[in-house]
């Protein structure tokens, strides 16, 4: 790959990877948090 553009291309692919990872992780973490909440007795929710 041409050196001149490498930085631009790789950083845009890196950003894309970061966005994809965030989109994958965020709902997963939220779901775990929700499940933890839900397994507590109902009175304590909220």
């Amino acid at each position: 790959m041409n050196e001149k553009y490498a930085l631009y291309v790789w950083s845009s692919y890196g950003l894309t990877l970061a966005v994809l990872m965030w989109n994958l992780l965020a709902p997963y973490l939220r779901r775990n948090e929700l499940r933890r909440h839900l397994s507590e007795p109902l009175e304590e929710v909220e």
Partner: protein
Amino acid sequence: MWTWFHRLASPPSFYRFADLLAPWLLALALLLLAIGTYAGLFLAPADYQQGDAFRVIYVHVPAAALSLFVYSLMAVSAAIALIWRMKLAECAVVAAAPIGASFTALALLTGMLWGKPTWGAYWVWDARLTSELVLLFLYMGVIGLNQAYSDARTAARACAWLALVGVVNVPIVHYSVQWWNSLHQGSTILSLDAIRDPKISGAMLWPLLLMLFGSFTFFFAVWLRRLQNEVLARERGARWVQELVPS
């Protein structure tokens, strides 16, 4: 067909349906994205004008396409939510906003990274860039509005109103900026656009199509997951949720 649709829209059956569908969608998406990325970076020939800089297209165009598509989807869900008061549609609006915002930001950032080597500037105030930026603000407005309310339903319906008004707004912004540019500078950007959208050859095109398909599938997979979370949070008192969670 309609009974099927109604049954699907009920929270418990939707939840199970999403549980079945999401892993497959995600696997397909990751496969497509992996092949597309490899092909885009290593198999596609370098552009004769832009050299390797054009490879940004494989992440930029899917992100930009998704940013617009997700907003339209959000607006359609908003209309359904407001007209038929469908709970799932309300969740859909709220669940789509963060994903859309992230891809809009990605489209803007990769666009800047592409613009620097090809246009010589990270940013120009042309119609596409400006309306994309406005789109990001609209998404952020929806996210912020959703968090400002303590009641999830009120929040979601307020977001739905904002999404609807916003969808009228986006084309207005686009054309107003176009007019604004035409008054000021010549159509330098138009000729730059021609560089940006070259007549694309087959060897360059197929990785792009893979990436487009992959991104859209990816969106649907994570959207389903977020929708599940929304449904779960709202129905926390319902019996099917209690049965779902091992206590």
